């Protein structure tokens, strides 16, 4: 594992970039100042590949860029009308599948799903709302879990295991019945602590700290003026 890493050359949207072997397309793009939209990929967690927002065409085939590692001479397309349309559809589906009430959500302005929709310029979803019946777990004194807003990205499952070395969250069932569960009757009975990294891992407002909602005034929130990914795109050139 300690042998010297080789440098490979790949092409993303016509731009040739030198990358070290073993890293994912998503990370390689990020280092080159190219933002590939993504939701379930988070920090250095083992990639999940579940949201498919980061789908790109690799040598003509569609792949999730968060799990696909680079290889020599790869030709990657990301910023194409076709892929933007697919990504938009995925975000639309995430919105209609849950109960996302941005107008009173504490996460609004900080939410990555909302920010993704802003970036794509979505004004209304193209699919009918499902209005599912989902629970809210308020049992924990400092943290709550609102399943209405959960997009099943698995960031909490992986953060709890990989960073907190706990196992607070798990998925149960499959397909459209898949849902997030806590490994106890309620959050209060798990070993979840408000200082755990997992509390900040949720991209939406499903897992949130209590009593800190709406702390940042409208206009000062992260995505009020800058679109998601713009901080990566700004670094273009500097990191090369």
């Amino acid at each position, binding site marked *: 594992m300690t042998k010297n890493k080789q440098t490979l050359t790949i092409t993303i949207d016509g731009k040739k970039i030198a990358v070290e072997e073993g890293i994912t397309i998503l990370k390689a793009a990020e280092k080159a100042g190219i933002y590939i939209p993504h939701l379930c990929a988070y920090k250095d967690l083992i990639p999940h590949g579940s949201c498919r927002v980061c789908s790109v065409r690799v040598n003509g085939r569609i792949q999730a860029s968060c799990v696909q590692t680079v290889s020599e001479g790869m030709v990657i397309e990301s910023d194409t009308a076709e892929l933007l349309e697919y990504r938009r559809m995925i975000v639309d589906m995430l919105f209609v599948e849950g109960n996302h009430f941005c107008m009173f959500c504490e996460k609004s302005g900080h939410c990555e799903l909302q920010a993704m929709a802003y970036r794509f310029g979505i004004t*209304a979803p193209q699919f009918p709302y499902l209005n599912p*019946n989902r629970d809210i777990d308020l049992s924990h004194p400092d943290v709550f879990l609102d399943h209405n807003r959960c997009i099943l990205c698995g960031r909490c499952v992986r953060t709890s295991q990989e960073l907190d070395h706990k196992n607070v969250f798990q998925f149960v069932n499959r397909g459209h019945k898949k849902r997030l569960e806590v490994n106890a009757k309620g959050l209060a009975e798990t070993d979840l602590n408000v200082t755990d990294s997992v509390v900040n891992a949720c991209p939406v407002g499903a897992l949130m700290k209590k009593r800190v909602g709406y702390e940042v005034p409208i206009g000062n929130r992260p995505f009020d003026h800058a679109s998601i990914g713009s901080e990566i795109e700004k670094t273009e050139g500097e990191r090369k």
Partner: protein
Amino acid sequence: MKPRIATCSLAGCFGCHMSILDIDERILKLAELVDFDRSPINDFKHITTRCAVGIIEGGCCNEENVHVLHEFRENCDNLVSLGDCAISGGIPALRNNIPLEECLETAYLNNPGIYNPSGIVPNDEEIPMILKKVYPCHEVVKIDYYIPGCPPPADAIWDVLTALLEGRAPVIAYDSLKYD
């Protein structure tokens, strides 16, 4: 003749209409550009003639909302869903995963503070029938353009309206595209 604009609030709170007024002094320019047809501003009960733009606030929670929405669709060249309730059902749609009977019982019968000695859920024929769930407007008729927000920023309303009146494709700037 000036192009005509019609507006209405279905299952909304009139917050979006307040946001229309929030275009401030631009409302004088708007009065030069258009005439208002059916709207809470003039209290016309029905659309009188063909309109260039119809603006819908709120989703459909009862039969009357559906009738009004159809009237707008039939008489407006461009129909705009204004605000989160028109686009997603919004706050009224919070009841969508609760059985209707349970909602009515909680509202009129079994809740602390309710005084209802007759024990009747209002059912007068003058009252529009409530729908089983609250629908966003585009699930009832075809909607041409959407302005999200709760309420939508006045700049977004102005930009979309002026674009439509000038025959341009409306684009909402990043800073004005908000869901809250």
